[in-house]
């Protein structure tokens, strides 16, 4: 079974802190994604990566950056956390084939105080 894991299920941080969210997949997937999920807004793509050291902005990249130094790991970085970044963050991965599904991690619920 494909496994996508995220470093924390719940995280509480203070405004201005630098926050790292880690995602690891064990299926040798080329593609990895970071989404933000908010009630009434669905899932919105923050960043995605289609190869090591490669990244592309999604729909809402402002305030975020990413790092992919190894194929299995994709990190989301909040350089200076703000209260409006309180949200559920979902990581996903997939092969780069046209019909391949994205496999999701359990999510990290981040609260910024």
């Amino acid at each position, binding site marked *: 079974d494909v496994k*996508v894991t995220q470093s924390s299920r719940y995280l509480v941080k203070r405004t201005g802190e630098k926050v790292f969210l880690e995602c690891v997949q064990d299926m040798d997937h080329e*593609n990895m*994604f970071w989404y933000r999920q908010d009630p*009434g*807004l*669905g*899932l*919105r*793509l923050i960043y*995605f990566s*289609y190869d090591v050291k490669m990244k592309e902005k*999604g729909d809402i990249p402002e305030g975020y950056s990413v790092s992919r130094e190894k194929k299995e790991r994709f990190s989301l970085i909040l350089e200076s956390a703000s209260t409006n970044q309180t949200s559920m963050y*979902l990581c*996903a991965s*997939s092969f*780069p084939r*046209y*019909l*391949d*599904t*994205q496999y*999701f*991690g*359990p*999510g990290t619920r981040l609260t910024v105080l």
Partner: protein
Amino acid sequence: AQTVTQSQPEMSVQEAETVTLSCTYDTSESDYYLFWYKQPPSRQMILVIRQEAYKQQNATENRFSVNFQKAAKSFSLKISDSQLGDAAMYFCAYRRDQGGSEKLVFGKGMKLTVNP
């Protein structure tokens, strides 16, 4: 830009009954893929069913089937013989058929409650 609309934020169904979740999308592309994902409470999002736009036949997966109307840009999900485990958030998603573009566009989701 492509958009996906799920107009009903919540629905409920009695156990063993059938329910249909609606989804419409907007695109100028002719080739694309459509997906329904399920997110149970406090559990991971999983794929329910997928449909290639070039296929006229509607996809089915056990109790789950879709009604794909390409001209109307409609992609509804039918759940037959609803079970308590079907209670979840359901998301409709769209993806272009373009080499290297695996980005999904999601709808806002719909919460399904299954009553015993």
